[in-house]
């Protein structure tokens, strides 16, 4: 009923190739955009933005980035934390070195720097495959964190080794620093997320996305039909690094405001983002959102229910949180091994035929 192509005629190739060819899908997409851009900014408060929306938006960007690499191109990466650190430190250096340039430029440049670093560590992927590749990226993770800790230039020689985001504005509205309004932070990240998601969606639909998927499905076969594995893998690492770097820059500058490599960008961050895309669904942009939402929102929700509403001691609640999250992951897997995105796809298929499934 809802997702039906019948009666939805296309008269040009342009129409036929648009991002959401089904009319209902398209309207739903506009509705989500409308709510996110025009409604949410007016109703959010500090708690909602800082505890839930900002981490969700930023991790979504990181998850999209990793999903391009792992989900679309099949290269397992455990270096996300380290690459986010590159984005964060690059952003810090740009912010302090060129305060007169817009922060938007800084964030994008940080993405570019991260892309370059990511490509460098992606080179061994031409030889090493599967779980073994994880070691190459883990080497990046540990090495980068060590480097940012070790070389004082990265944190401007401050005694503490921490980096702090100074106040920066966009159109005279503060987006970083302590005096930022909740809605401004939210909008700033939302704009970046929207652009990243659009770029990712269109890249994965086009030639380059197809070469990635060919490499993922079987790289030797892909090579034989004329896909250049060097180009495909390197481009996947680059694009992925670009998004992950933006996420790292935003995480530091907008969300946390202060960071330290080992503390904020440790190995747990790499695992967290990987968990997000596996739970959300590999090879799906929607899955990146779903996974980020699951792992960011569920713990907060559980905490608020257990501690806030039921009044449990915080430590018992924290332990139970672990048990529940772990149990849910296993349960979801048994019910639907391909992640939340697959559940969504199945639901869409059902809705297509509903209410007359036969």
């Amino acid at each position, binding site marked *: 009923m809802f997702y039906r192509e019948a009666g939805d005629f296309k008269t040009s190739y342009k129409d036929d190739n648009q991002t959401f060819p089904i009319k209902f899908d398209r309207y739903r997409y506009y509705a989500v955009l409308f709510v996110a851009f025009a409604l949410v900014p007016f109703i959010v408060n500090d708690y909602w933005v800082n505890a839930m929306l900002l981490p969700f938006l930023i991790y979504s960007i990181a998850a999209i980035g990793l999903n391009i690499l792992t989900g679309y191109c099949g290269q*397992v990466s455990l270096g996300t934390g380290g690459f986010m650190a590159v984005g964060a430190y690059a952003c810090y250096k740009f912010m302090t070195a060129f305060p007169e340039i817009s922060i938007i430029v800084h964030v994008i440049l940080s993405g570019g720097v991260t892309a370059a670093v990511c490509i460098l560590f992606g080179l*061994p992927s031409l030889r090493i495959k599967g779980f073994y590749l994880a070691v190459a990226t883990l080497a990046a993770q540990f*090495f980068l964190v060590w480097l940012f800790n070790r070389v004082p230039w990265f944190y401007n020689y401050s005694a503490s080794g921490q980096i702090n985001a100074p106040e920066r504005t966009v159109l005279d509205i503060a987006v970083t620093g302590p005096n930022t309004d909740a809605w401004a932070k939210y909008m700033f990240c939302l704009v970046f997320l929207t652009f990243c998601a659009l770029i990712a969606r269109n890249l994965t639909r086009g030639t380059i996305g197809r070469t990635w998927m060919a490499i993922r499905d*079987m790289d030797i076969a892909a090579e034989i039909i004329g896909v250049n594995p060097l180009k495909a893998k390197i481009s996947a690492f680059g694009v992925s690094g670009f998004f992950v770097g933006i996420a790292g820059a935003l995480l530091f500058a907008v969300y946390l405001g202060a960071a330290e490599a080992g503390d904020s960008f440790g190995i747990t961050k790499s695992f967290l983002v990987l968990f997000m895309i596996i739970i959300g669904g590999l090879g799906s942009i929607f899955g990146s959102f779903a996974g980020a939402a699951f792992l960011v929102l569920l713990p907060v929700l559980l905490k608020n229910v257990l501690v806030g509403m039921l009044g449990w001691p915080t*430590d018992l609640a924290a332990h139970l949180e672990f048990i529940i999250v772990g*149990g849910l*992951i296993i349960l979801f*897997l*048994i019910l639907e*091994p391909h992640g939340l995105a697959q559940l969504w796809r199945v639901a869409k298929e059902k809705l297509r035929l509903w209410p007359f499934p036969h």
Partner: protein
Amino acid sequence: MPEQLIFGMEVFLNGLMAGVLYALVALGFVLIYKASGIFNYAQGVMALFSALTLVGIMEGQVPFGHLVNAIFGTEIHGFGWHVPAFAAILLTMGVMILLAWCVQRFVFRDLVGQEPIILFMATIGLAYFLEGVGDLMWGSEIKKLDVGLPQGINAVIDETTFEWFGYGFFIDNLDIVATIIAALLVAALVVFAQYTKQGRAMRAVADDHQAALSVGISLSFVWVMVWSVAGFVALVAGIMWGTKSGVQFSLSLIALKALPVLMLGGFTSIPGAIVGGLIIGVGEKLFEFAVGPLVGGATENWFAYVLALVFLVFRPQGLFGEKIIERV
């Protein structure tokens, strides 16, 4: 003999010992991966869980005491008995076997034949779950583990080497014990895999699930067995590291030390885990010794991975891993 060379030898020996401990953790991964193709992220948490259980049993702690007290308002703190180490280890082993059965029955039975990444993810869920259960059961404060293993500098080696070189080597007694136990464990595993009926079944499953199934080998039995053995290896690793540092959350992080070992040695090879462990142990210690002071130290964490990476570039399947043959 030049001083640096003597120091280097001491570092080398200590690296070997550390490598054995890494290998011990890596062994647990290899066993499960070989028999079921599961990359078990929860191995580190299993070591923590088993060590927690061991201490809990030895000290007569009441499982879930904190939770029970919170719900019923009681004041239970312990049974007030002390179980001897040996009996406690046996009991803990029982718990680990039970855990293996539960894992097989409630998680992996429903996931047979799924892709590796999905099995991997299930072990992530398992790791979260076990972490929560372990803390809830035994509490998250730090616990002293003492099963009677010796610790401290080995006086004999110290004195002998002092006589030879004029500089006494520092070798930890615990490391010596760990090396012996690890060697015995590996020998026992090899004997078990080569000469017992169950071991043959295990190898058959590792070679080909369907063929093994068709000749009447029970897959679920073999998997429970493999998880139990991995649980046992986790327990041994948990005892070794727990004796060193007390039993606490960080014990679950030793898995990170085992990953480069696995990569280097190959996921599927028991000798690979041993040799890989030794190479990583010696490599990272020597590097820290030789290059560390020049670049500011604390290089061990990343160097292990970089070392594994360099090896992999030349041998993508690890040292002893099965050669990856790809056909179109």
